């Protein structure tokens, strides 16, 4: 491309200066113009520039910390809409990293990832509203539970979602890849239908009406219900998930996963406990989703089954595929791109078109509101990525899942495709 050619021609000091400028300037702009959507988008882009910048990791880390822990909250207090969007982005980043463990690291296609997310959300929602009083006698406990329980539920939500993953994974992980995809899809639909209908004979989930109001978390007597609180909770959790995923990928387990996704039979012959390792990936992915579900429920203070449809699963899959299978930074990038598109760019575009219609410049029927066509965009992302860039925007350093590689022509250079001998 023209831009890359020009970039390579420029001298190194200019490159560095331009890079740092692009990484820092947007936050100043964002600080000065907290109402501007362009400033917000540029701010998000500056994080990506920072990631790509060739600079000492420490300097980059410090700047990233300043951007995320200082600039964003300071601006966010003035305009909570952006704080809300970026918190939502954070939740999806964690979900995408979790799904990336299952799909990217271990090569198991999971179309029902949202089931575990729903489980976590409902798990907290039932006990943090008066709902649990319907089937647990008041003598044992009073509901809703106080917000202090949130932290325990975060752990329990992760653990129980993991257990659910174990229960599902145990019988189905022997299935071939495409069958596994359909079974997980079916499982997610079953979970959604159950949540939708478990309001009788005993009212457990309150059916399609959903559960509200969910208790906000509490820490040392402070009720954490402002957007800024959730921003920090999600930020900490995202950092934790990134660290866990990176460490897992670099560990013995990560290598076992890579071996399985490259060639299951060969891995088996080399003594990798295939079933146990697949289960582990499935369970870890599920527990990430469970924990994020708990946070989602606490943040929204409302859950209902419609938030957990097939669409959500595919949305998260989209983030992983777009960003690059098996790459943690890819999953982050994909999640940021897709959620920003969904929550911010499409909406702004719709409003812009709406204004044009109101002024009588264009006549667009309300049926054709771009914000309603997320599915079309997800579909296009999936098809185009599969055909033109199967390795994603930020490919994994280690080679791709075997099932994602073309036989002819090779999409990755032989140098990168070195076998993992350590």
């Amino acid at each position, binding site marked *: 491309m023209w831009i890359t050619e020009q970039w390579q021609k420029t001298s190194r000091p200019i490159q560095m200066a331009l890079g740092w400028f692009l990484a820092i300037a947007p936050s100043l702009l964002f600080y000065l113009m907290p109402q501007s959507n362009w400033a917000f988008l540029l701010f998000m882009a500056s994080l990506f520039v920072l990631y790509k910048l060739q600079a000492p990791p420490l300097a980059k880390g410090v700047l990233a910390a300043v951007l995320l822990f200082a600039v964003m909250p300071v601006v966010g207090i003035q305009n909570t809409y952006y704080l809300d969007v970026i918190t939502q982005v954070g939740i999806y980043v964690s979900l995408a990293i979790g799904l990336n463990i299952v799909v990217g690291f271990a090569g198991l296609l999971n179309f029902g990832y949202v089931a575990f997310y729903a489980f976590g959300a409902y798990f907290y929602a039932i006990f943090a509203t008066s709902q649990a009083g319907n089937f647990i006698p008041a003598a044992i406990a009073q509901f809703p539970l106080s917000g202090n329980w949130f932290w325990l539920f975060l752990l329990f939500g992760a653990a129980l979602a993991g257990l659910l993953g174990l229960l599902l994974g145990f019988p189905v992980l022997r299935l071939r890849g*495409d069958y596994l995809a359909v079974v997980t899809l079916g499982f997610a639909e079953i979970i959604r239908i159950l949540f939708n209908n478990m309001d009788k004979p005993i009212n457990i989930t309150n059916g399609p009406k959903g559960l509200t109001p969910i208790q906000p978390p509490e820490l040392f007597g402070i009720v954490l219900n402002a957007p800024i609180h959730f921003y920090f909770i999600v930020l900490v959790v995202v950092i934790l998930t990134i660290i866990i995923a990176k460490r897992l990928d670099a560990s013995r387990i990560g290598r076992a996963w890579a071996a399985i996704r490259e060639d299951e039979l060969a891995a088996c012959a080399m003594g990798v406990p295939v079933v146990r390792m697949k289960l582990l990936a499935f369970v870890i992915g599920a527990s990430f989703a469970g924990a994020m579900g708990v946070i989602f429920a606490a943040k929204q203070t409302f859950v209902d089954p419609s938030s957990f449809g097939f669409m959500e699963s595919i949305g998260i899959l989209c983030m992983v595929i777009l960003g690059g299978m098996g790459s943690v930074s890819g999953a982050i990038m994909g999640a940021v791109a897709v959620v920003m598109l969904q929550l911010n760019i499409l909406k702004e575009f719709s409003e812009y078109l709406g204004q044009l219609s109101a002024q009588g410049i264009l006549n667009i029927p309300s049926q054709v509101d771009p914000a309603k066509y997320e599915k079309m965009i997800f579909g296009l992302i999936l098809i185009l990525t599969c055909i033109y860039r199967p390795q994603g925007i930020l490919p994994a350093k280690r080679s791709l899942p075997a099932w994602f590689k073309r036989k002819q022509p090779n999409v990755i250079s032989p140098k990168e495709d070195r076998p993992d001998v350590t």
Partner: protein
Amino acid sequence: MEQFLQILPQSLLDGLILGMVYAVVALGYTMVYGVLELINFAHSEIFMVGAFAGTETLLFLQSAGYLASMPAPVALLMALFIAMIISGSLGVFMERIAYRPLREAPRLVPLISAIGVSFFLQDAVRLIEGLWKNAFYLTAPSLFTATIAISANLRLPVKSLVVIVSAVVMMLALHLFVTRSKWGKAIRAVAQDRDTSALMSINVNQVIGLTFFLGAGLGGCAGTLFATQYSLINPYVGFILGIKAFTAAVLGGIGSIPGAMVGGILLGVLEAVGAASIGIATNGAMGAEYKDVFAFVILILVLILKPSGLLGEEVREKV
């Protein structure tokens, strides 16, 4: 129990009608799987497009004033024909755009692409209908209104009889085509071994295109039949039905054409009887809203216990 016996004939009949639709849609899944080993997720959207094409044809005939004056079977045949052409061409086009570039890719890549096609088509139809009619829910005009009363608690509407008859005719025609004709032989050869059949001077791309055309055309016809039977359609009608038809294909043994027919009818009957009896079994605590769960549970059980299905062949994984 007595209550159950009372509703049994009617729910068997309902199940048979639904099962016929499943069976015809399942044929599309099974044929594509047979030649490409690909779960064509977008087939459910082909079905939906067929439903829209057929319904729009009928609506056009209605608004032009021809519908009242022409015999109902002729109108239905016209709708089926147009739905078949549109869906079939869409199937061929889809294969060309989204699957052929990925034919040498590992098998899960086209699966992801197929999901993408499916999502894209849902919203594309919604967009087109939104621009055209300013509403994306359509109601198909009713062609056959008479009802045959077989006994006191068993009634068979003529429109359902039409669904059954057309589905049977289509399945027989397909069966004859695949087993008797030269093209059918080519399809079977490609399904067995693509590379060798290419050496036997079979044009593999053409045969795959033909398979998509036939499968998608049948799916489109099933969509039109579905619209005449249940009258209300929307762009998202295909998704759950598609999964169930896929379940039917797996139940019968994926890749096997008679299997898809058997599986479809069996699944339809199981679902209708199950949905009708669950309310009785639990004394009304759980109702027909759990009917979708049946299909998924059956799918999971079949895949775990007998992945080759009722009539399918066992396939061993090769190194």
